[in-house]
C-alpha cells in the first residue's frame, strides 16, 4: 500500500512535486497539499486532481483527520516558514521531513553524492523529529551542480568550486525572488560540505527571455592537477548517476580544461593565490514539464531529488 505524504507549500515547487508523486511514485501518494492562500493556482490544481487540500498552513494540517496517516512531509515553503513548520511537527515523532527550502537546518542531501541507506535508516530510527532528522535538499542550483564538484573532487582535490545557475524568470516564484541570498549562501556552503571544495561560490541569474530558456548550470572548479581523462570520465559517470532520477539532466558541451600555471595564479578571496587545473562543465536541465513547461529544469531537479529521497526514507 502506498504511504501518504503531505506537501507544505502550494507554490511552483510544491505543486510540481505533487504532480510528480501522483504520476511517478509507486510507494507514495499525496495525502494533502497544504497552502496558505485558498485562491492559489497550486491548491486549485490539487482540487481538480482530486487531492485533499488545506489552506491554513501546517496548523490547519495538524487538525485534519488525514494528519495521523501522513508518513512523509515535504516542506516546499520558504526558509523562514520551514523553521515555524519544524517546531509544529516536532511533537509528532512518527513523521519524516524532507526540506526543499534553503533553510539548511538539517544535513544537506544530494542523492547522487551522499545518499546512503545507512543514513536514512538511522533517520528512521530517530525517535524525535529534530533538526538532524530533516534532510535538506540545498537548492535547485545545488542539486544540479554539486554532483559535478564531487565528481572532480573524487579524482583531484578541489580548492575552489564555483557554480552559475541560470533559470527562466517565469520559473522563479515569489519565495525564491524574495530570498536570493539564501540561494547563494546555502549553495556555497553545500559546495564545500557535500562537493568537498575548500571554498564554494554560487551565482544565480534570472533570464526573462521569451520563449523561456531552459535551465543552464555551469560548474567551474580549480583543483590539484590530475589526469584530465580521468576527471572527464568521473564527470560523465556522475551525470549518468543524476540522470537516473532527473532524465533531462545532460552535459551540454564536452568538459573543458585549462591550466592555471603557478606563475600566473588566480587570486581567490579566502584562499589567496592558487594555481592548478581549471575544469569547466556546461550543463543543461530540461524539466519533465509536470507543473511548469520543460524550461523549468530547476523545479524538476529539486522535486525529483526530493521524491527520490522521500521514497528511500520510507523504503
Amino acid at each position: 500500500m502506498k504511504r501518504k505524504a503531505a506537501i507544505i507549500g502550494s507554490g511552483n515547487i510544491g505543486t510540481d512535486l505533487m504532480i510528480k508523486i501522483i504520476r511517478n511514485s509507486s510507494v507514495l501518494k499525496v495525502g494533502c497539499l497544504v497552502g496558505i492562500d485558498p485562491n492559489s493556482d497550486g491548491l486549485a490544481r490539487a482540487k481538480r486532481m482530486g487531492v485533499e487540500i488545506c489552506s491554513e498552513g501546517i496548523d490547519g494540517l495538524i487538525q485534519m483527520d488525514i494528519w495521523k496517516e501522513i508518513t512523509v512531509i515535504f516542506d516546499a515553503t520558504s526558509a523562514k516558514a520551514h523553521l515555524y513548520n519544524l517546531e509544529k511537527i516536532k511533537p509528532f515523532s512518527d513523521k519524516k521531513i524532507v526540506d526543499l527550502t534553503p533553510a539548511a537546518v538539517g544535513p544537506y542531501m544530494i542523492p547522487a553524492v551522499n545518499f546512503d541507506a545507512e543514513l536514512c535508516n538511522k533517520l528512521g530510527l530517530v525517535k524525535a523529529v529534530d533538526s538532524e532528522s530533516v534532510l535538506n535538499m540545498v537548492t535547485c542550483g545545488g542539486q544540479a551542480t554539486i554532483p559535478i564538484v564531487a565528481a572532480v573532487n573524487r579524482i583531484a582535490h578541489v580548492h575552489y568550486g564555483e557554480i552559475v545557475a541560470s533559470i527562466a524568470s517565469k520559473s522563479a516564484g515569489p519565495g525564491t525572488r524574495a530570498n536570493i541570498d539564501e540561494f547563494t549562501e546555502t549553495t556555497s556552503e553545500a559546495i564545500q560540505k557535500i562537493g568537498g571544495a575548500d571554498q564554494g561560490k554560487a551565482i544565480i541569474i534570472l533570464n526573462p527571455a521569451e520563449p523561456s530558456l531552459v535551465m543552464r548550470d555551469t560548474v567551474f572548479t580549480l583543483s590539484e592537477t590530475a589526469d584530465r581523462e580521468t576527471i572527464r570520465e568521473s564527470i560523465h559517470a556522475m551525470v549518468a548517476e543524476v540522470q537516473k532520477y532527473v532524465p533531462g539532466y545532460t552535459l551540454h558541451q564536452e568538459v573543458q580544461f585549462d591550466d592555471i600555471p603557478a606563475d600566473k595564479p588566480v587570486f581567490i578571496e579566502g584562499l589567496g593565490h592558487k594555481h592548478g587545473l581549471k575544469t569547466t562543465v556546461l550543463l543543461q536541465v530540461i524539466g519533465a514539464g509536470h507543473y511548469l513547461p520543460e524550461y523549468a529544469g530547476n523545479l524538476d531537479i529539486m522535486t525529483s531529488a526530493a521524491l527520490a529521497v522521500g521514497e528511500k526514507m520510507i523504503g
Partner: protein
Amino acid sequence: MSKKKLYIQDVTLRDGMHAIGHQYDKHKLKSIAVGLDQAGVDAIEIAHGDGLSGGSFNYGFGAHTDWDWLEGIAEELNHAILTTLLLPGIGTIEDLKKAQALGVRSVRIATHSTEADVSKQHIEAAKKLGMDVGGFLMMAHMNEPKKLAEQAQLMESYGADCVYVTDSAGALMMDGVADRMKAFRDTLSDNTEIGIHCHHNLSLGVANTIVAMQNGANRLDASLAGMGAGAGNCPLEVLIAVLNRMGEHTNAAVNQLMDLADDVIRPLQKRPVRVDRETLSLGYAGVYSSFLLHSERAAKKYGLNTADILQELGKRKMVGGQEDMIVDVALDMVKQKSSSLK
C-alpha cells in the same frame, strides 16, 4: 516638478574594472579616488566590476578583494561620498554590511530590467544600515518605458532613494532614453531621484546622459576617459565640459578631470576603451558590455570572431551576468563550423 541638484557619480573604479579585468592596484586605486575627490565629483563607486563579491571564474578574479580596495578610502575623501554596487544573486547582504563597516555610505542594487523584485531584501537591508540607495535597472533597452517604470516603482516601494535607467549594452537611442525618463517621472514620487548610466558603444554616452538630464535625471554616471565596460561609460571630463557650456552647475573641475583622464587613466588601458568593431557590435546587438573581454578571450581560444560571438549572444537574449554562456556559444559555433566543413 522641482529641479534637483545635479549629482555626478564616478564609476571609473567600478565599471572601469571591466576594462582591465578587475586589476587595479589598490594603491593606484586610492590615488585615483583622492584625485576624483579633489576634482569635485559627488560620489565615487568602488567594487569589482560585477559588484561586491564579483570576483570569480565567471567574471574574472580581481587583483584584490573588494575589502582591500575599499579599506582606507572613506577617510581620504573630503567631499565625495563613497559608494559601491551589489548585484543580488552575486553579492549578499553580508557583503553590504562589510562594505558599510568600511565607510561606504551609498549603494546601488542592480537587477536586470525586468527583475526588480529580487532587490527587495537588499534595498531594505541597505536602508536599515542607514545608506543612500539607488535601484539600478540594467539592460534598460530590453524593457519598454512603461514597464521599466513599473519596475522602478517596485524599487522605490522597497525604499530606493533613486532609480537608474542603466543602459548596460549601450544600445539605447536618444528617444529611448527620453521616453524612459518621462515614464519614470510620470510614475515615481517627486521625492525619488532619477539617474542615468550610459555606455558609449554607439557613441551616444554623453548625448544620452544630457537627454536624460533634460528629461528629469539629476544623478549622472560617468568615468574618467570613459573607463568602463565595452566602449566605456559616458566620459566624465567631457560630460563636465558640456554641462559647463550648457550653464549647468556641478562641483567638478574640468581641467583636473582632463589631466586625470589622460595622465592617469589612459595609460592603464591595455585594450583601448573606444568605439571599434567589437564594442560597436555590443551596442548594435544589444549585448551586455562586460561580455567584451571574455568574448575576445573565447574568440582567441577557439579561433572565432569576437563580433560573431557577441551577435550570437544577442540573438540568444543573454542577460548581464551570463558570462558562462560565452564559452557555450563559442563551442556551439565551433561545432557548427566543423559540421559545415564536412
